[in-house]
């Protein structure tokens, strides 16, 4: 992947993540983690090579199909990216509206997800009225509201206390156990060591390590 200014953000990448896997993507700042997320979301297009997510071939996918690709995944962004002028309930409901879910289903499922992230009592609050951790939990609820095949979490523990961090990771593991693919992008080595999951290490745009639960499988 080469940016228009000539910077090669990712090169020589050969990575396959199976359905239902739990993978940590780790690396220093500038290693290519963000670019990888952008490629998966088709925010950027691969300049060379192939990239496949579910049934979508991203290197030749037309723009009009981007919304359909993004509906297959739930993303928790590091900066949460919540709608500032929508309430917690509306933020979660919006993801379901996008896929044309019935209002009756939305009314039934949004409280369920808010309960799951322990934010039932904040349903009517706006994001600016929430703490960082609460905002992140809203982002989690929104990410899983559509029952996506894959959940991508970008630095999910960066803005929460250790206890909440543990709870969020437990939530991701539960999601993974439901058969969903989970990709966690982080630079928190403690987190990676704690959970013993497949870990792909990026450095200067290349994969420099790929360990499966602590066992190196490919480098």
């Amino acid at each position, binding site marked *: 992947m080469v940016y228009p200014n000539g910077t090669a953000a990712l090169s020589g990448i050969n990575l396959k993540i199976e359905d239902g896997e739990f993978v940590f993507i780790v690396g220093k700042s500038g290693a290519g983690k963000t670019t990888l997320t952008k490629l998966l*979301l088709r*925010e950027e297009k691969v300049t060379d090579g192939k990239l496949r997510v579910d049934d979508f071939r991203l290197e030749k996918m037309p*723009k009009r199909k*981007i*919304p*359909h*690709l*993004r*509906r297959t995944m739930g*993303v928790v*962004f590091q900066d949460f*990216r*919540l*709608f*500032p*002028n929508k309430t917690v309930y509306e933020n979660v409901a*919006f*993801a379901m*509206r*996008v*896929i*044309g879910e*019935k*209002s009756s289903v939305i009314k039934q499922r949004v409280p369920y997800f808010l309960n799951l992230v322990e934010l039932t009592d904040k349903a009517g609050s706006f994001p600016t009225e929430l703490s960082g951790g609460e905002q992140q939990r809203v982002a989690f609820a*929104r990410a899983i509201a559509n029952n996506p095949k894959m959940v991508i979490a970008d630095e999910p523990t960066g803005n929460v206390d250790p206890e909440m961090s543990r709870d969020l990771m437990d939530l991701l593991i539960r999601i993974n156990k439901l058969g969903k693919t989970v990709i966690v992008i982080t630079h928190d080595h403690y987190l990676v060591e704690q959970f013993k999951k497949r870990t792909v290490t990026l450095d200067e745009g290349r994969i420099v390590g790929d360990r499966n639960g602590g066992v190196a499988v490919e480098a």
Partner: protein
Amino acid sequence: MKLRNIPHLLGQGFVSFWRNGVMTTAAILVLICCMLVLGSFYAVVDNLGAFIDNEIDSLKTVSAYVDASASSEDVEGIEAQLKALAAEEGSNVISFEHVTKDEVLKQMMESSDELREVLEKYTSENNPLPETFYIKFESFDGVQTLLRNLEGIFGAGNIKSQVVTYESLKDLRSTAAMVGLWLMVILLIVAVLVIMNTVKLTVYARRKEIAIMRYIGATSVFVVAPFIVEGVLIGLVATVISCGLQFLLYNNVITDLINDYAALKINLVPAMDYVPLIPLAFLAIGLFAGVVASAISVKKHLDV
């Protein structure tokens, strides 16, 4: 997009309209200002045109003077010829009025104090003014034929028309109309650009929101639709407020300004004569600016 999303998208337009209060208010205020400038300018130009038209109407009278040597039988003969001319189809004559020498003298003395002083020494016996016929005609189009016919009745040199004044006013009218039209077009373009820029700014302020919608998987239609609903609402609210303010402005400020500063007494066009033209024009500008600007501006931020 699924049909069941339509009520939601409409509702989102209304919700955003309220929740983005500051930017919405800014857009509405800019729209109102532009509409009022346009509406007021149109009203002034239209009143100027109406004034010139009224002046032209008042010029549609020919004064024909009876020769001083004519006897009362000659005058009766002239009157009979005028009646016959007025009865002719296509004669362009609407009516005529016969004014005796004494009445002419009286009318002139009443018309101004200066003339009264000059004419005071004259009586019925020494009145130098001629017996006069005022002939009202329909249109300046056939006025030359009418003047020739009247010269045949009264003799050359006894006819006074306002054709020269009419030609000058006609030129002034077409120049004013042309200048007014161009200024309106320029003003309209400037107004639409200002409004579109304001709407663009309101959308720009929400570009992150648009990006989030796209990250979640919203289609272009799903993102754009609430903004268009919002644009329609902004256009409608601005139109309603502008119509009310324009009515007040016209009936008070513009009327006072024209009456206070115009050298001539002008009978203003009634405000209700601009209904439905101005409200419809405001609505068209409001909706065009609100909807088109929203759609164009949102589209720019869709590519994420």
